[in-house]
């Protein structure tokens, strides 16, 4: 890739009312998510090995201002990054008929929100130590890559941490949803300028206290919250969100944090005194007095254990003292048994019984335009903070899991890379509309040949092409 000459798309052909040509390279399975910006679909490539693809549709923004800046930012970042623990953008498509954008990603069957929920509601016991440690290590590994490239994710939460299903990448963590992510080198405006950041349960105290200049440490706080949630299956700081004004002071969220960690002090966190809400809402903030810092009790960890040590360093109040991703990866916790592994579900040396997680529910009655046909979805199980492949709230029909949807097949990886495929394939025959019927189970299992395909073909760092 990268020869820059292979845009094969033919925009004039795709602006008809017929199904655009690029869409014909996929078989739609159904809708898997819904959010503020649009819908997420599950599809499969028509050409073998019929790889599953998550397609995120961005609607034209309603304010008459074209492609939403969120979509631009997400595409812009995703086009540059390539890491095993970051979701892979395989294609972007434009539908000129309704001026919408479609982002095609490698499909991930699971996410931490669903995994945690499954353990809490169905399994009855927590995740095993190996899985927790592997998930956390991979999450930190992906985050380390992002941070070393000056990208803050800003919206880490269990539903944005995906895990791959059966196949070559089984049990591998993928950080998703870069809609709020920012490049934090030399921003033209203060980073806090474009509104709401991070679901409040995972929001760092410096943000809650109104900090204008925040750093990658906000992501590490969120990782700490997620770590605790993996251990206990409950959100660590479950504050009630204040929704009054544009960016309200989240006093309840802070209160939940103080209750477990104790109040922060200027002594331990010197820049605390400069934070807007610490100055203006001091009475509010200190309304309740909490003496005992009881984090170890909440997460049931021995205060001397490496796991507790790592967690408490992630939940350090002062962002300057909070552990960084590279430091966390070096922590003793990851050097002791069980060692973290590439497949978070299955250790190379079998220990405990593996848990079979439920696959993502698919609403097979929705087509790519997002219009629902015939049978409306049945029950709706709306997760508070859910949203696979990074779409806001998930409100998906649950009971369909049994018959109407497919287990993902083990998939090979094939050459669906930019820019060779950045467009349409005119030779694919026309496909009927409403391709919502379930496929037959594909029995062939194709072996993945080259795990390094895709956007990873970076030039050696010092190569100077002018020489």
């Amino acid at each position, binding site marked *: 890739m*990268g020869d*820059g000459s292979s845009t094969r798309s033919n*925009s004039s052909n795709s602006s008809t009312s017929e199904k655009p040509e690029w869409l014909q390279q996929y078989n739609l399975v159904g809708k898997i998510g819904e959010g503020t910006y649009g819908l997420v679909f599950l599809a499969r490539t028509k050409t073998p090995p019929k790889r599953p693809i998550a397609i995120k549709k961005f609607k034209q923004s309603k304010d008459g201002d074209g492609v939403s*800046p969120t979509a631009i*930012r997400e*595409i812009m970042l995703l086009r540059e990054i390539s890491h095993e623990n970051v979701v892979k953008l395989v294609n972007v498509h434009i539908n000129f008929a309704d001026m919408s954008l479609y982002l095609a990603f490698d499909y991930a069957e699971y996410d931490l929100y669903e995994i945690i929920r499954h353990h809490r509601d169905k399994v009855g016991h927590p995740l095993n130590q190996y899985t927790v440690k592997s998930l956390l290590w991979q999450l930190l590994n992906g985050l380390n890559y992002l941070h070393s*490239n000056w*990208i803050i994710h800003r919206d880490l939460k269990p539903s944005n941490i995906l895990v791959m299903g059966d196949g070559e990448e089984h049990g591998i963590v993928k950080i998703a949803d870069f809609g709020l992510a920012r490049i*934090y080198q030399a921003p*033209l405006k203060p980073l806090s300028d474009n509104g709401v950041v991070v679901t409040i349960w995972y929001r760092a105290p410096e943000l809650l206290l109104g900090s204008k200049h925040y750093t990658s440490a906000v992501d590490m706080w969120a990782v700490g919250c997620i770590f605790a949630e993996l251990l206990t299956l409950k959100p660590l700081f479950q504050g009630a969100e204040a929704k009054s004004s544009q960016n309200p002071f989240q006093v309840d969220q802070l209160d939940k944090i103080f209750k477990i960690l104790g109040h922060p002090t200027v002594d331990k966190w010197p820049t605390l005194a400069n934070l807007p809400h610490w100055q203006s809402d001091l009475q509010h903030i200190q309304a309740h007095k909490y003496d005992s810092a009881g984090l170890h009790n909440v997460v049931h960890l021995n205060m001397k254990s490496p796991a507790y040590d790592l967690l408490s360093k992630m939940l350090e109040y002062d962002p300057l003292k909070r552990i960084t991703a590279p430091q966390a990866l070096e922590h003793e916790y990851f050097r002791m048994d069980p060692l973290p592994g590439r497949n978070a579900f299955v250790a190379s040396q079998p220990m405990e019984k593996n848990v079979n997680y439920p696959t993502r529910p698919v609403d097979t009655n929705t087509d790519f335009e997002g219009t629902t046909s015939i049978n409306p979805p049945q029950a709706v199980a709306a997760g508070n903070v859910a949203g696979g492949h990074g779409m806001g709230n998930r409100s998906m029909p649950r009971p369909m899991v049994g018959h109407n949807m497919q287990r993902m097949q083990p998939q090979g990886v094939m050459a669906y890379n930019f820019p060779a495929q950045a467009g349409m394939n005119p030779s694919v025959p026309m496909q009927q509309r409403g391709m919502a019927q379930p496929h037959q189970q594909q029995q062939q299992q194709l072996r993945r040949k080259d795990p390094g395909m895709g956007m990873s073909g970076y030039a050696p760092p010092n190569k100077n092409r002018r020489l």
Partner: protein
Amino acid sequence: MASNFWTSTHYKELKDPEEINVVHPLDAQRGISVEDFRLIKLHMSNYISKLAQHIKIRQRVVATAVTYMRRVYTRKSLTEYEPRLVAPTCLYLACKAEESVVHAKILVFYIRKLYADEKFRYEIKDILEMEMKILEALEFYLVVFHPYRSLPEYLQDSGLNDTSMTHLTWGLVNDTYRMDLILTHPPYLITLACIYIASVYKEKDIKTWFEELSVDMNIVKNIAMEILDFYENHRMFTEERVHAAFNKLATSP
């Protein structure tokens, strides 16, 4: 990415100068020469700057917009991608990418103010449609590194960070966007070429500083020569010639 130019799409997409100065067959049919092509891109770069001044858009956003526009024309024809629509749309897109969003209606207002010709008074819908086409033409590569970033650091390091040097070099960097340099050279080398020109002009000897940089001074000097050539020829870029080039574009082959 943002920190590492060498792993960026910007780096991977750098082109040889010979690849840049190729007139698209559709434009060639209308009699557009390499010189006409260059003139039109120069004119549209200036137009983007002018438009941005009216809307009060930052220089870095202007630089990104000009880069988008120049990248578009390495792949697309002037005939099919009307420059007078592409240029403002690149500015519109750059504003989103650089997080300084400007509303399409404001852009349209200023286009009308600047362009007397009815034919090029675009509507919001024209901008939005072209935005999609430009995204596609750019293959969604939107991150651009600019020579501005390393400028203060280099000036400080070489001990040339007085006001007049800062002004001079900053102005030189601005002018590099009237050429295709941003498509052909890593931005830090463009910065160094501008500092080199300024140091010669102001008779400051920073030869040893350059030597310690471990960069290929031949490349820096070549870029500097290109910039000086541009200034040399600048008198010849007259309004009449720009008009003549646009007139060729308007005639059917």
